[in-house]
């Protein structure tokens, strides 16, 4: 087994991989950009190498710097996490060339799946159904207009190199096309360094359901069932569950078989996800893309199947056969994950970077929080605003919602705005509770929300909140009136809580 692994990532996924390394008694090596020097993923590692300034292209996206860091520290393998270099076939090839192990699929499989056009071709050849769309990238707005007319609106614009909703736009009418085309192109260029787009027919009331596959280097390919990720904002998944609320074992077997077939066709190894659109009414499914990496939402599959996907990635990369067969895989209960973002749900989900001044993470039965921050962490403007993934497992979907609701209510983050209040409403939403999901869920959710009469406020809660603010105000006034005596400064210490008591005494 490897003695040392370099993790070419940051934030919560770097922490997740560090934990798997610790479980396997492998020494984890972090890389970090200058503003990330004091971040959690660095603090939890045995070694860490600074690989440049804040901009990703000069740090986390720099192939030579990452490989140099591995050489310098003597790491034998590199785990790319997701995002950054995770789906960059050139990186995988460069790692191999440097005599190191890339913890991921072969570069060739990444290349095929890395371009939407070659991926769709591979799917067709493997007999997996696809959504009607362009096979070659579209370069001009004129071409886009022509193709869109041919398929009929609504259509979907997607970045060839894309993922995570970046460079993706749903276009429902012809007049929106030009602005969507320009914005998607520009976003794709900035996110992936590649502005090529393609265009697809949009499916009505589609559910986004994906299959987790796992392959080893001995020819074993297994699927771990589905995840439903239909709840999306700006084409970015925000709530994911395993199994899908439709929980149809026949459909699972059919989709699983298709995904395994595709993985075999490209000589896949390691963890991968085959994404499908499923038409809600007909249960027909269409291949969307294959993500040749670990997925953000992997915890729900881990909670329901019991397998540790990151541990398995490492052992498969080390040449071991899969630790389970298709027959071993059992799905127990239900798990739901929400992505906690530093975004303000009351202000159109605008990013909300800043310092986390207070953090209270939920615990207890069935709750798992995979976080990349702690109290005092800076949530930087430079990177993805996801700070944590909160997941809850239950014996039934109902129990998992009950536990998720409880965990969301316990969770407190101050100093920045987060999507927690948004999720507190989602888990109480009737359609969500019934499992009536498709990718239009969020817009319908907001429509229902607007329809509802303004909630009857609990008068007492409002009064108490006002009084709490008034108490704080009066204390601040008193404190500032008496400044600058040292005694006051000390009493202000005490005001901030008993935690500091020990330190104060020591310093006096």
């Amino acid at each position: 087994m490897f003695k040392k692994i370099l993790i070419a990532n940051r934030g919560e996924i770097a922490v997740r991989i560090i934990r798997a390394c610790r479980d396997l008694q492998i020494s984890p090596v972090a890389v970090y950009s200058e503003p990330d020097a004091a971040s959690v993923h660095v603090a939890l590692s045995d070694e860490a190498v600074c690989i440049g300034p804040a901009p990703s292209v000069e740090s986390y996206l720099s192939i030579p710097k990452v490989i140099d860091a591995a050489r310098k520290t003597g790491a034998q393998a590199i785990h790319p996490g997701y995002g950054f270099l995770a789906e960059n076939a050139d990186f995988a090839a460069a790692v191999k060339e440097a005599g190191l192990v890339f913890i991921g699929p072969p570069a060739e499989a990444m290349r095929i799946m890395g371009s939407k056009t070659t991926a769709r071709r591979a799917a067709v050849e493997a007999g997996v159904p696809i959504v009607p769309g362009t096979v070659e990238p579209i370069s001009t707005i004129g071409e886009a207009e022509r193709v869109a007319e041919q398929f009929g609106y609504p259509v979907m614009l997607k970045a060839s190199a894309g993922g995570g909703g970046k460079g993706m736009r749903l276009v429902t009418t012809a007049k929106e096309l030009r602005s969507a085309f320009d914005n998607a192109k520009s976003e794709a260029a900035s996110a992936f360094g590649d502005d090529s787009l393609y265009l697809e027919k949009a499916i009505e009331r589609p559910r986004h359901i994906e299959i987790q596959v796992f392959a080893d280097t001995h020819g074993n390919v297994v699927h771990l069932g589905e995840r439903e990720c239909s709840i999306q904002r700006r084409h970015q998944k925000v709530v994911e569950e395993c199994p899908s609320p439709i929980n149809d074992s026949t459909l699972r077997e059919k989709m699983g078989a298709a995904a395994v077939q595709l993985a075999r066709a490209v000589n896949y190894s390691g963890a991968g996800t085959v994404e499908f659109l499923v038409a809600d009414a007909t249960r027909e499914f269409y291949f969307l893309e294959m993500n040749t990496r670990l997925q953000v939402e992997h915890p729900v599959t881990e909670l329901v199947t019991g397998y540790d996907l990151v541990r398995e990635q490492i052992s498969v990369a080390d040449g071991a056969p899969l630790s389970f067969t298709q027959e071993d895989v059992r799905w127990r209960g239900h798990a739901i994950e929400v992505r906690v973002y530093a975004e303000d749900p009351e202000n159109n989900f605008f990013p909300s970077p800043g310092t986390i001044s207070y953090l209270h993470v939920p615990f207890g039965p069935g709750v798992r929080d995979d976080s990349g921050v702690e109290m005092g962490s800076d949530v930087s403007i430079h990177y993805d605003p996801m700070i944590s993934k909160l997941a809850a497992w239950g014996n039934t979907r109902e129990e998992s919602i009950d536990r998720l609701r409880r965990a969301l209510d316990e969770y407190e983050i101050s100093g920045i705005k987060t999507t927690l209040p948004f999720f507190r409403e989602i888990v109480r939403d009737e359609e969500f509770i019934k499992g009536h999901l498709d990718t239009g869920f969020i817009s319908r959710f907001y429509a229902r929300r607007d329809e509802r009469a303004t909630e009857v406020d609990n008068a007492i809660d409002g009064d108490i909140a006002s009084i709490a603010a008034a108490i704080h105000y009066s204390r601040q006034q008193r404190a500032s009136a008496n400044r600058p005596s040292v005694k006051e400064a000390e009493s202000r210490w005490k005001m901030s809580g008993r935690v500091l008591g020990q330190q104060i005494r020591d310093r006096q």
Partner: protein
Amino acid sequence: MKLKAQISDTTHEISLTTVEHGVTAEIDGRNYDLEVRESTGGVLLIKNGTSVYRCRVESKRETGKYEVGLRGRSYPISIIDPKRLRSSENAAGHGHGTAEIVSPMPGKVVRILVEQGNTVEAGAGIIVVEAMKMQNEMKAPKAGVVVSINVAAGATVNAGDVLAVIE
């Protein structure tokens, strides 16, 4: 201590007296006798009879502005002190049909979609700001004429910066 608290457009009169075990308070004629305990991280544990209220009070940059978290809800509250003249009461509100487009976060201007003098519809895209890897299109809050654009493509902006004004 007599104060006013503004919470979602309504103003409440608060009279606050510190007593041994906490405070007594009168708010719009409703009387409360509260036990108050401080915990870490700006958390006040308040008891009203047997009811428990765990209030997390976060001070905002402006004096008198707070965000109070209570039972999973967040209350933005402004405390106005009638004794102090520099009340924040009049700070809010836009004058006479003018709408400012304010950047809600620090970021980089990637594209300006209109020119000064253009007439725009409500909801029309005005400026695209990128932050945390996402491009956010700032839209016109109302129909009108773009009277000024205060930034250029490529500029770095801070939260609260006025990017453009529509009249």
